[in-house]
């Protein structure tokens, strides 16, 4: 132990670290400063958690459209505690937005922004912008549907302002939203914004120490106490409670990951993260040429008022009821944000969970077990095992390959006897999409399994269910609402007996009795 002290003494003689530590920890805190003043420390703790979880995520994350999604899945599914790691970072972002707003409201409520702390306030507002910048750039990174479409909308919003095309081009990095966009948003998220964050946090803390803590509205009698351990205890307890809440969230809930980004998907309805929902909702009230009012003017005005607040409200009185303009202004802005967020939330459509298996992928899993596939797609075989296949080809290629395997390398090897029909090909493609997003294979009742296989083999070439299948015949997703089993059975058996003009082929001779019963019951049940 004595040796350690000698080493510390030597270090202190060369660096003066003990003086520095004393200066940091023994800040005199005026009497009466209580729990109101823990908000900044809680925010600092959350930013620290975000920083270190971000560093560990960066050990695995790959900023390229081909690999980003797979690398996130790897983090969540293969790393010990990887799911909690990503959830900490994901929910941590929301916690930080909430903590930053609470901290700001505390500063406004106690008038802490007033002279001489104007610059401290401005550095805080800039910090809030950096935090929102992190949130915005962070959600492109997983390269899932939400990431892709929300970013498309963000870039188009940027287009509506002055120098719009220039800024949109800057954000996009290339002619389309793609690898160049992802790389520059990644660079911003892990290099530029952290540098700005650390710079502004240091400036904010330096200014806070320079002017001292603003303290309670009326001085409380009593001698000041050192920050450590008296106020540090309150900070630590509050920080621990928030951290406990965060880790509970991260353990209980899984950070969402949509299906992989698909620029051709016309059905996806993008919605921003909750903290941008108010801006999203605001946009709806200013259609067409008025759009810049919602995207630029109103947010710009709010930001301008925030930045200039200490200069607009210069009176010395810090009591909030003596500053009716500021108090009511914040109440109006706050209430508007809450109401707009609520309206935006109510308007969010429930979109199909990509991890839920429809009939096509269930059938595809069965078809892919076929010897015609397993002949090449095995460990040590000429092609990757199907479960290890990363679906990188476009759907048309895949369907063509399944229908005619020889087309990938005519003459190179003996093709398997006979291809599959288009419905089976679509089923396998759909199955591979589920494999790609890591959706666990569901266990479905025997009847549904049989119906799925019938649908994949005989129906999917022409009909669609839940957005998957062919578009020649009608969509069967809700067919049960139009027809019951008593109508469906004769129709599938012999369509032209029901309607002489029917163009659908008859399946009475093709399907076994069991298969017919299964598909009829399944379709009648789809309402």
């Amino acid at each position, binding site marked *: 132990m004595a040796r350690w002290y000698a080493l510390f003494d030597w270090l202190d003689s060369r660096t003066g670290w003990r003086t520095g530590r004393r200066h940091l920890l023994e800040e005199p805190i005026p009497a009466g400063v209580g729990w109101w003043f823990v908000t900044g420390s809680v925010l600092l*703790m959350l930013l620290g*958690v975000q920083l*270190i*979880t971000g560093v*560990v995520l960066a*050990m*695995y994350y*790959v900023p390229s459209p081909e*690999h980003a999604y*797979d*690398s996130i*899945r*790897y*983090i969540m599914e*293969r*790393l*010990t*505690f*990887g799911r*909690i*790691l990503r959830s*900490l970072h994901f929910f941590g972002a929301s916690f930080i937005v909430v903590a930053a707003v609470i901290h700001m409201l505390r500063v406004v409520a106690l008038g802490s922004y007033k002279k001489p702390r104007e610059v401290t306030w401005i550095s805080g507002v800039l910090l809030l912008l950096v935090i929102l910048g992190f949130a915005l750039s962070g959600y492109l990174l997983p390269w899932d549907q939400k990431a892709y479409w929300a970013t498309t909308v963000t870039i188009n919003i940027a287009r509506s302002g002055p120098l719009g095309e220039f800024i949109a081009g800057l954000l996009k990095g290339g002619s389309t939203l793609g690898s160049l966009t992802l790389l520059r948003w990644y660079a911003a998220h892990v290099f530029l914004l952290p540098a700005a964050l650390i710079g502004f946090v240091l400036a904010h803390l330096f200014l806070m120490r320079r002017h001292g803590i603003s303290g309670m509205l009326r001085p409380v009698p009593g001698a000041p106490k050192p920050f*450590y*351990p*008296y106020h*540090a*205890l309150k900070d*630590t*307890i509050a*920080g*621990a409670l928030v*951290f406990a809440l965060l*880790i509970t969230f991260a353990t209980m809930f899984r950070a969402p990951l949509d299906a992989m980004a698909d620029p051709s998907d016309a059905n996806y309805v993008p919605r921003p993260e909750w903290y941008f929902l108010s801006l999203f909702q605001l946009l709806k009230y200013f259609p067409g040429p008025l759009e810049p009012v919602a995207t630029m003017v109103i947010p710009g005005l709010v930001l301008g008022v925030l930045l200039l607040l200490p200069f607009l409200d210069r009176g010395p009185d810090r009591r909030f009821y003596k500053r009716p303009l500021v108090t009511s202004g914040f109440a109006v802005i706050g209430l508007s944000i809450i109401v707009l967020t609520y309206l935006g939330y109510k308007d969010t459509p429930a979109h199909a969970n990509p991890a839920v298996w429809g009939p096509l992928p269930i059938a595809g899993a069965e078809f892919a077990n076929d010897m015609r596939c397993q002949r090449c797609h095995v*460990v*040590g*075989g*000429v092609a*990757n*095992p199907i479960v*290890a*296949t*990363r679906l990188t080809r476009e759907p048309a290629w895949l369907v063509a390959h399944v229908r005619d395997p020889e087309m990938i390398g005519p003459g190179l090897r003996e093709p398997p006897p006979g291809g599959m029909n288009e419905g089976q090909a679509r089923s396998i493609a759909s199955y591979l999409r589920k494999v790609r997003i890591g959706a666990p294979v569901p266990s479905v009742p025997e009847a549904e399994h049989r119906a799925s296989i019938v649908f994949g083999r005989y129906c999917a070439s022409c009909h669609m269910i839940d957005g998957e299948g062919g578009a020649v015949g009608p969509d069967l997703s809700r067919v049960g609402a139009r027809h019951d089993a008593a109508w469906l059975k004769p129709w599938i058996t012999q369509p032209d007996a029901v309607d002489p003009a029917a163009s659908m082929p008859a399946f009475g001779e093709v399907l076994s009795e069991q298969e017919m019963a299964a598909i009829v019951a399944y379709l009648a049940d789809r309402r």
Partner: protein
Amino acid sequence: MSTRDPDRRQFFARIVKTIQAAIGGTLGVVLGGSILSPSFSSREEHWLPAASLSGLPDNAPTPITLRIVREDGYSQIVDHRTVFLVKTGAEVIALDPTCTHLGCRVRWESEAHVLRCPCHGGVYDHLGNVKSGPPPAPLPRLATKIDNDQILVQI
């Protein structure tokens, strides 16, 4: 300042440190698990068909290249691994061609009837035993089994 103040201060400081250690410890477990787990995960092993027994010459290492799809972090890569199959009567051994000295790949020299490492001159006999040079151990052997004249190697 009362006489109890230093005690109080020390007590508070201890609580602060304990809580901070608890937060740090929890984070440490999550981060440590995430950082360390891939380093200590085991590789999957597969039996791959390598050659037919009847087609192999006796007592002469024959290089066979095996194709294997292997996980590499978040992606799958196609790995090609060469093994030397040596038939000795009815038995077959599979030698990993990685020199036990510093990891170069050895070559079969049929005239000298030895496996030679091109890097530092390590020499092994046809069964992978060290004959001369720096290698500290014989060439590693891979498990083999024979199924209907088909030789399977465990990779």
